[in-house]
């Protein structure tokens, strides 16, 4: 059994006026030591999925309407709060998107890391603070900086602190939500290399949430493309990058200006993502799709395995293949 297995997870935000269907029956699997990239646009439900795994979906208005999340064979959705609290930050931890707001501005960074360690390992305060310094050094921050406050660090350094905190208890699973979006490219390259290096050394599995396909190509083993709360395509790195099948995935690749080739005009995906409070009846991507047929607007496409390990949610794959 995989380290993490998500089956049919559905998360909704319910308000008096509407029901926002943020995550609609997704299936995911992460094996030990592997990295899964979760790719999608703003509002696709990536972060909600991550919060769902950690049991952090704000309730109200968020409700987990169905599904199972198995971590080491145990269903997290059925676990008691006290059990989840033991897992969160310990066996599963998260790197949040914005290092500027993820740290407490009035607590020294060393103490913030020591807090996590003391809470989960039950060791003494001095042991925890020694360990926190070790963690800072692991991510390339000098020991004497552990008594400084977050505002004394630059963006890249703050993100390192957040990473040190997430790795402090040697988690089995690390959820990284756009860990480098707020950073400059040269700093991003440093942070990504460090994360890859630590992942190998600690044998951590990772769920990497991003919208940057370049980062996915460099760090992931498997990729899930998410659109309007559903996974529209899932496969290994080679499946997605060499043989993308879903029109949305193909559209994403066409939208990125290439560094290798000279393209005069980009081929963007026309239109916008549908309102998650008012999803269409058939395929969610139908309105923007270049190869839709009558069936697409009528019924929801099935999630098909087109080759071993490569899943696509599209009713018109054959029609598409002829067009390509």
């Amino acid at each position: 059994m995989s380290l993490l297995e998500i089956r049919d997870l559905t998360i909704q935000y319910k308000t008096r006026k509407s029901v926002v269907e943020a995550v609609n029956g997704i299936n995911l699997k992460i094996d030990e030591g592997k990295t899964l990239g979760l790719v999608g646009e703003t509002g696709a439900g990536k972060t909600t999925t991550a919060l769902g795994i950690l049991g952090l979906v704000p309730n109200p208005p968020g409700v987990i309407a169905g599904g199972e999340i198995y971590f080491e064979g145990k269903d997290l959705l059925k676990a008691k709060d006290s059990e989840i609290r033991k897992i969160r930050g310990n066996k599963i931890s998260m790197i949040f998107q914005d290092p500027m707001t993820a740290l407490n501005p009035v607590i020294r960074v060393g103490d913030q890391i020591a807090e996590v360690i003391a809470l989960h390992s039950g060791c003494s305060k001095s042991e925890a603070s020694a360990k926190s310094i070790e963690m800072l050094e692991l991510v390339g921050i000098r020991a004497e900086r552990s008594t400084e406050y977050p505002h004394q660090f630059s963006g890249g350094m703050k993100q390192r602190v957040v990473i040190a905190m997430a790795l402090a208890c040697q988690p089995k699973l690390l959820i990284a939500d756009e860990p480098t979006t707020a950073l400059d490219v040269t700093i991003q390259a440093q942070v990504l290399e460090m994360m890859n290096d630590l992942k190998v050394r600690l044998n951590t599995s990772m769920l990497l949430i991003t919208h940057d396909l370049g980062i996915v190509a460099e760090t992931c083993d498997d990729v899930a493309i998410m659109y309007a709360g559903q996974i529209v395509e899932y496969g290994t790195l080679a499946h997605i990058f060499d043989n993308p099948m879903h029109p949305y995935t193909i559209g994403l690749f066409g939208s990125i200006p290439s560094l290798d080739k000279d393209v005069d005009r980009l081929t963007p995906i026309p239109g916008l993502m549908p309102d998650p409070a008012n999803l269409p009846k058939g395929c969610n991507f139908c309105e923007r799709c270049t190869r839709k047929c009558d069936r697409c607007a009528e019924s929801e496409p099935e999630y098909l395995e087109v080759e071993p390990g490569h899943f696509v949610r599209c009713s018109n794959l054959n029609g598409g293949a002829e067009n390509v």
Partner: protein
Amino acid sequence: MSEILRVEHLKKFFDVPAGTLHAVDDVSFTIQEGQTLGVVGESGCGKSTLGRTVLKLIEPTSGKIFFEGRDITDISKHENRELRKKMQIIFQDPFSSLNPRFCVSDLIADPLKTFGMYGKKELEERVLEIMDLVGLSRRYAYSYPHELDGGRRQRIGIGRALALDPEFIVCDEPVSALDVSIQAQILNLLQDLQDKRKLTYIFVTHDLSVVKHISTDIMVMYIGVMVEKCPAKELFARPLHPYTKGLLSAIPVPNIHHEQKRVQLQGELSSPIDPAEECRFVKRCPYATDICRCKQPTYEEVTPGHFVSCHNVREINGL
């Protein structure tokens, strides 16, 4: 093709409590009509300040700016105002650069009203024309910014910049806040407008793949100074400055068969406040020698059309 903008030894310093912040330090360049100059660099390198100083939104500390052959460095307020009809800016954040209490047609009419160019009836017509031009459906004329998504909001920003029919536009990270699929729509729009109206752009961004796509020439900035400038293709094919090499190789490429030879840059940007008399890049440079630590390199044409400021550029690249 004629020269539309010439900037000579432009400097912009800010006085801050810790000293003098050298945001733009001795930058010179020219742009030909109808071309796009891409300005890239990491956050805090002075690229936005450069864009705004060129437009005279900020007064330069020293240096000269010529627009269509005329020196606009020390013109009067009145003349400056007239200049706005020809020079415009598109801002980075379509969420904070639009007045939330104005509807779309008010927002686009705003620059036109400022100059009192049209009567009421004509104004309405003109606003709708501009909405068509930037691909905003007319039914949004009375919507407010909060009702629209980022892509449409950025189209309003572009519409506002185009309202006065300018010749020159500074685009300050116009697509950074947008998703890739929307980003591609906006980039295509900017290119179409350039073709249609012979616009000249300065395109400020930190996204190197975007800048390669849209620019004719690219200028790389590092802590207020220009480190390299050349035609876009040349920069990506043959980067000469060690910083550019590091920057280019740091971009994650969305292709799994791409072999990455990474020149990893260590450390971070040093402070732009009262910088020492040395090469700004010396602390991160893998090729630094003694001369780099005691003298700022001059900006010179190393190969035809390719400007670099580095003491050791010839040794590093075997030229």
